[in-house]
């Protein structure tokens, strides 16, 4: 499967999830998603647990608000009827199932490309060269920021401005840390843009490295995207 095909499949399936109005529609989406995830022949446990971990706190909050405090579903509030906690529970279940499917769809797509590097994935994408370049530079700068945080933190601890543990001193001088990190990153960015990259021809090399060589779509993309499209049509029909 190509990254383009995976993104198309993901967008169609997430659109179907967003448009689903009942648990039957969501069950159809789940069936397609599970088939896709199982076809990748990878261990789904971590993807399922991650998705559950994302949705569980939201579910707890929703249950507290809708079932515990409000005690009726939105359509009952709109109709001006007294409502019931059972209807509120059904509403919370529907919203949570939808959120779980969205989270799991992204994880299932990730699983497909778990052995790809970020650069290989971005290279295979069909997107404007500028967007691909900005994406790769962002990924590189995230690392730079994390290193800058590490260095600045160590330097400020040594200087006695902040401490390793939570303290009032950290609250007072926290802004010094933020400023130090920002200035470090800016200094690195200026150095790279003005001196390093032109000397090494980095951006020209990056353009060359990001030029897609693989086909945009594969046959298997059509299969999965077709399945997702049919799923979307069925969900629309059930609305």
């Amino acid at each position: 499967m190509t990254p383009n095909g995976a993104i198309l499949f993901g967008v169609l399936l997430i659109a179907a999830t967003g448009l689903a109005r009942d648990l039957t529609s969501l069950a159809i989406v789940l069936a397609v998603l599970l088939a896709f995830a199982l076809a990748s022949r990878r261990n789904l446990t971590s993807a399922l647990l991650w998705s559950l971990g994302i949705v569980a706190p939201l579910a707890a909050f929703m249950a507290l608000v809708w079932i515990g405090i409000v005690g009726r579903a939105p359509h009952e509030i709109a109709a001006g009827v007294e409502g019931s906690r059972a209807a509120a529970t059904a509403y919370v279940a529907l919203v949570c199932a939808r959120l779980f499917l969205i989270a799991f769809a992204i994880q299932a797509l990730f699983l497909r490309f778990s052995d790809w590097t970020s650069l290989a994935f971005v290279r295979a994408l069909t997107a404007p060269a500028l967007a691909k370049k900005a994406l790769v530079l962002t990924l590189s700068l995230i690392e730079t920021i994390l290193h800058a945080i590490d260095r600045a933190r160590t330097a400020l601890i040594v200087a006695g401005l902040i401490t390793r543990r939570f303290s009032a001193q950290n609250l007072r001088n926290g802004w010094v840390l933020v400023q130090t990190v920002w200035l470090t990153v800016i200094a690195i960015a200026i150095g790279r843009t003005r001196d390093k990259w032109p000397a090494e021809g980095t951006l020209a090399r990056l353009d060359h490295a990001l030029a897609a060589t693989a086909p945009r779509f594969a046959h298997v993309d059509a299969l999965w995207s077709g399945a997702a499209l049919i799923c979307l049509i069925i969900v629309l029909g059930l609305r």
Partner: protein
Amino acid sequence: MFTTPRLVAIALCAALNFAIGNVVYLVKLPIYLDSIGTILCALLIFPDRLAAICCAFMAGVIGIILTGLLLNPFLPWFVFTVLAIVLVSALLTGRATDTFRARPLEPLRFFGKVILYGVITGIASAIVSAPVVVYLFGGVTGSGSAFVVAFFLKAGQQLLNSALLAGLTTEPVDKTLQVLLAALLYRATPREFISMLRLPQPSPT
């Protein structure tokens, strides 16, 4: 429009959104702080408003895509909120760049403009976010604002109204904080970097 320094600024601001947004999300603070890079990008590229809109939107979208893929899969649904924040930042907040960089700092003007533009950004953001919060999350996003939603629902308001009113009470505070941090970072940015982001002016001769 997309010169190499601007491309670096986009990447830097997207990375900033990702890094700060992640920290805030992981420590479960009742605020978002995930648009500081977007606002900062607009301030850095101002007064070229069109470039500021395009670059800041690109930074915001890359930020939410990365955060959406790696941490919070629901963030990409708020792409129109990013657009609203970009428009307010590039068309309004950018007007205060002189005040934000004035030396010595004029506290009254500085904080006055931060609060004014922060509140406007918050209102725009709340209006655009409300339909997504209602449809995707059923009005409850897992932050402290959920209790504000519950309060309005209990008072007999409809769901969309409740989510909007809750957004209007919480978003201006969050966005004022974001504009403040973006303005302080903008103030701390070396002049050399900002001049690199300006397009070379043609010589009068």
